[in-house]
């Protein structure tokens, strides 16, 4: 058997980087740990080179009996994951440095989680997908508890861990039943035979178990209750990673399995996806209204956004329409969400330092004494709300367009729920912006001395701002993800 090393090159670069991080960390004295961070950031950036080469070359490469496929869909997702991890690493540098311990291992964890999600993006059978998902989440259980002096961080990691392994067990039980019924694990083979078993109760059970497992991973209602606590307790850059990369990984797992392996069972899972989407939007948005802490607000916001992401896919599935259109709209939404949410978390890190607090009320008047940060906060929160000309509007536009093109009672009902929720979401996003710009500085508040954020954090802010604004102005860029997912349609649909 020959192995196509070029197709594996992005993963190989990450592996080499993380082994380098692990060994470099052994020899460096504590004062020089920034070299570990530099290596991690550089390695992540370097992995983009073979990725771009592969994308330009554009052929589909399949390895290991078709269980690992590098096509433009996988490459687009890998690119997104790399950008996400790169920005998270930039955010982490100054944050982790101030915590002072276990920096080397921190970067090791992030990089291996990134590797797991990249493997997943290419995985085309249940086993590779499962191993990739575990490699993605395993290090994150540990990272959530990384501030081990803080009991809230300990608790965050325990909650995340118990519910994470529970969801893994449910997902695996679903997979084992699926294997038992069909005798195959590859997505293509599964797609060919699952239709014959659609009526069996065991198949319904398998699909629902799988679905519940994925529901936990993407933290969609009603499987979301770990998310706000874990997000609040974990170190903020880890929270950013959880809400972006790990959520993307969960969505890849869910959508790819449903779309590539189980399209013939849409009768079983389509109502479930519809309900998951509607519930996530509504419950999370209503809970977000009550939040005072900005990280918890973003936690509920990201649950709600997960609901929005599922809207096009759910609509296409319940209407029994062509899934491809909904699938690519969902992927575009995920990509734009990733960029603006990362930006929002970068603002939270910088803002927590500028105001000395993570409560929305304490951010009052931030725009007066730190206008630059105030503008950035407005950019990302309004983008999350979907205000043009920031990137968020295009995500919402694609979502609604896809649903309306699909038509039918189920999709339209979902679109109405989404529209109502967009308004509710606007209210709490705008509340943050109002606090920053319109509210007076609280009486007697001690404002810490304002310093420019660390270079790496500024770079993260700059990158996310630029991407959010540019994609908002020229949305054609984001459609690269739509084109990429068409490849999958041609191959799998």
């Amino acid at each position, binding site marked *: 058997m020959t192995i196509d090393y070029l197709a594996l090159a992005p993963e190989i670069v990450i592996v080499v980087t993380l082994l380098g991080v692990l060994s470099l960390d052994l020899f460096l004295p504590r004062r020089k740990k920034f070299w570990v961070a530099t290596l991690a950031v550089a390695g992540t950036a370097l992995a983009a080179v073979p990725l771009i080469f592969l994308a330009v070359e554009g052929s589909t490469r399949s390895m290991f009996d078709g269980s690992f496929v590098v096509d433009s869909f996988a490459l687009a997702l890998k690119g997104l994951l790399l950008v996400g991890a790169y920005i998270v690493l930039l955010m982490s540098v100054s944050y982790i440095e101030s915590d002072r311990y276990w920096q080397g291992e921190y970067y090791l964890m992030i990089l291996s989680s990134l590797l797991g999600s990249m493997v997943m993006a290419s995985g085309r059978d*249940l*086993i590779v997908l*499962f*191993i990739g998902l*575990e490699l993605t989440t*395993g290090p994150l*259980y*540990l990272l959530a*508890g990384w501030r*081990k002096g803080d*009991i*809230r961080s*300990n*608790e*965050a*990691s*325990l*909650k995340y*861990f*118990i519910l994470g*392994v*529970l969801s*893994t*067990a*449910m997902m*695996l*039980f679903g*997979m*084992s*039943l699926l*294997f*038992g019924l069909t*005798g*195959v*694990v590859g997505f293509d083979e599964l797609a060919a035979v699952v239709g014959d078993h659609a009526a069996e109760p065991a198949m319904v059970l398998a699909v629902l178990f799988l679905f519940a497992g994925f529901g936990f991973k993407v933290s969609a209602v009603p499987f979301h209750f770990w998310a*706000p*606590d874990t997000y*609040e*307790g974990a170190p903020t850059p880890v929270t950013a990673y959880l809400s972006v990369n790990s959520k993307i990984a969960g969505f890849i797992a869910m959508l790819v399995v449903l779309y590539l392996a189980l399209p013939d069972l849409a009768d079983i899972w389509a109502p479930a996806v519809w309900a998951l989407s509607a519930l996530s939007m509504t419950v999370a948005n209503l809970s977000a209204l009550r939040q005072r802490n900005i990280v*918890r607000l973003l936690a509920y916001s990201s649950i709600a956004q997960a609901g929005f992401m599922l809207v096009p896919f759910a609509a296409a599935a319940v209407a029994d329409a062509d899934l491809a259109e909904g699938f690519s709209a969902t992927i575009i939404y995920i990509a734009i969400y990733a960029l603006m949410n990362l930006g929002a978390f970068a603002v939270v890190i910088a803002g927590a330092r500028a105001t000395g607090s993570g409560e929305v009320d304490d951010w009052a008047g931030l725009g007066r004494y730190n206008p630059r940060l105030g503008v950035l906060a407005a950019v990302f929160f309004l983008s999350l709300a979907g205000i043009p000309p920031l990137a968020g509007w295009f995500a919402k536009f694609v979502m609604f367009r896809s649903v309306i093109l699909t038509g039918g009672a189920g999709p339209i009902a979902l679109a109405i729920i989404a529209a109502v929720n967009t308004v509710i979401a606007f209210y709490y996003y705008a509340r943050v912006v109002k606090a920053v710009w319109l509210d007076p500085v609280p009486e007697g508040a001690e404002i810490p001395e304002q310093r420019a954020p660390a270079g790496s954090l500024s770079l993260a802010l700059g990158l996310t701002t630029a991407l959010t604004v540019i994609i908002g102005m020229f949305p054609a860029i984001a459609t690269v993800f739509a084109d990429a997912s068409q490849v999958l349609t041609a191959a799998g649909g």
Partner: protein
Amino acid sequence: MTDWYMLLAAALFTIGAMGILVRRNALVMFMCVELMLNAVNLTLVSAGRALGSLDGQLATFFVLVVAAAEVVIGLAIIVAIFRHRDTASVDELSELKG
């Protein structure tokens, strides 16, 4: 015969799931998850045998390795918590609410 193996696996899985709901000691909850994973393994091996396919046993191997890694991670988390709290009970962890 295979159906009986499946039923045993399903029973183990259900008992494990019930344990997660009933117990509040993190260690025991975690053992219940291991129980569920064992049920998955039994399903895979029995199904693989009925199908005459080795893939069931291979999948079992992967589940087992992942379970081992998760045990390492989970016990590290529990030890880290215990350093602060002297407890492994989830009920006593209530810093984060709401």
